[in-house]
């Protein structure tokens, strides 16, 4: 399945730059993301971490002034090659956003959205996909009696898990999380963190977070970015216990950020 050299890395980012107009947002980043692990990207606001994350499924395309230089490979295929099928890329590399953003339709229809646009029509097949995705997102028990109520009637934490279920219904290989818990209360946050640990068993997760404790708690690898550059990358334990770079140390000890 994984096409790259040793099969270990699902993303290989090589000397990658991202620009917004003339402004450089991500500078010369070299980073490999390992299959079925959780990689956290941390750093202060405006350091380019979300921009880098959104490049991985080309959500940056929505910003018309953005352009990239260098290479980012997903399973050996250049994400920004002109022949890359962006639609298929986004199916395989799903995304969950900072603010829960369910559609203003029922819980069921939210989860069925992806399969439906891909042409799944049979009711029983859709039912199965929806139930499966909601179970995996640890939401089924809470919503199984209100599948046909609006997705927006749920609580914040439930909405975010609904968004995760909506992505899971696509059978993605990777899920990108852009500060998924920053709008949630501590209990909902804990639920989502537990969920990520569960999902990691067969999905690669890349999470951008402001919250260093969160990165330390849940990730296998941590990347620290500052002013568009990747300052340090490594095992989460070694980054937090024994950072090599002075900037990293200052950031994780809370001296700036």
């Amino acid at each position, binding site marked *: 399945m994984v096409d790259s050299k040793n099969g270990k890395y699902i993303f290989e980012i090589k000397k990658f730059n991202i620009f917004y107009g003339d402004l450089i947002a991500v500078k010369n980043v070299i980073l490999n993301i390992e299959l079925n692990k959780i990689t956290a990207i941390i750093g202060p606001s405006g350091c380019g971490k979300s921009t880098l994350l959104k490049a991985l499924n080309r959500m940056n395309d929505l910003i018309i002034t953005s352009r990239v230089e260098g290479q980012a490979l997903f399973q050996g295929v250049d994400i920004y090659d002109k022949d890359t099928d962006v639609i298929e890329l986004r199916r395989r590399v799903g995304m969950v*956003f900072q603010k829960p953003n369910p559609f203003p339709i029922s819980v069921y229809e939210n989860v069925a959205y992806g399969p439906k646009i891909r042409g799944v029509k049979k009711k029983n097949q859709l039912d199965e996909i929806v139930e499966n995705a909601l179970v995996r997102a640890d939401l089924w028990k809470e919503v199984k009696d209100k599948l046909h109520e609006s997705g927006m009637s749920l609580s914040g934490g439930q909405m975010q898990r609904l968004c995760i279920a909506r992505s899971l219904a696509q059978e993605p290989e990777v899920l990108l999380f852009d500060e998924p818990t920053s709008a949630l209360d501590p209990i909902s946050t804990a639920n989502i963190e537990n969920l990520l640990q569960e999902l990691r068993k067969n999905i690669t997760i890349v999470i951008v977070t402001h919250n260093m404790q969160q990165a330390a708690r849940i990730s296998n690898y941590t990347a620290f970015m500052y002013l568009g550059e990747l300052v340090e990358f490594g095992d989460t334990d070694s980054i937090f216990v024994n950072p090599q770079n002075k900037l990293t140390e200052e950031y994780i000890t809370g001296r700036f950020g």
Partner: protein
Amino acid sequence: MNQEMGEKYKPFELVRKKKFNFKENFFLSLIRTLGFTGAIILIIILSFVAYNGISILSWEFITQPPVEAMTEGGIFPVIMGTILLTVICMIVVIPIGVTTAIFLAEYSKPGLILSTVMMSIYTLAGVPSVVFGLFGLAVFVVVFNFGMSLLAGALTLAVMILPYIISTSEEAIKAVPYSFKEASLACGATKWQTIRKVILPAAMPGILTGSILGTAKVSGETAPIMFTAAAFFTPGVPRSLFEPVMALPYHIYVLVTAGTFIEETRPIQYGTALTLIILVLGMNLLGIILRARQRRKKAW
């Protein structure tokens, strides 16, 4: 001692209004009065028309055709003419207007083409309605050879209302949260799927409201249909798109200016005006209720 102090300082005197502030009160009343001008004018017009027209309004008046050189009978074909003109106009203009709005809001990129289209729409919105009438006469009646007809009139009205439909639809589309679009695209939907399944359904109440208010505007127009569709008299409701029609605003104009029995038809004139006002206000009310409901229901 306490008493002494109380007399000295009189604390309540400090916060009590000392004298009548003439300037403040004058401007306050002025603003209040002027602020109600619009409402007052509307009430005067409505009561004037209602007072003069209410006596003739009856079931017969709205269901019977005119008789005796229009001095007697009802205005049924006139009402039907206005409804037909408006409905056909909307059937034509809504798809074009909404499509243009989708293009402007979702596909166009800033540049020469977009600014040209935007400028054309703004200019079109500022063109006097009688000019649309002449345009309709030249293009639909003569060049397309539709003649003075329901179709030519409806198309002329459609051209006139197009900028309004475009701008209200564009606003409705732009009001759909960006996060919906993002979520849909991140699910691997194409741009068109996103527009069709997420953006348009969310924008639909706004588009609908704009269309209803546009309909209300169209149904009261005289100038655009004067040379393109409106007939002095037709024996009944038109049986095809290519027949001329009677219409409420034009009917009023004709009865007031061109008939041989101007004085005799006074009640009918006011009755027709009242019918038109009720129709337009009714549609506006529907639009306003819809808009209020949609604001209340909106979860984002």
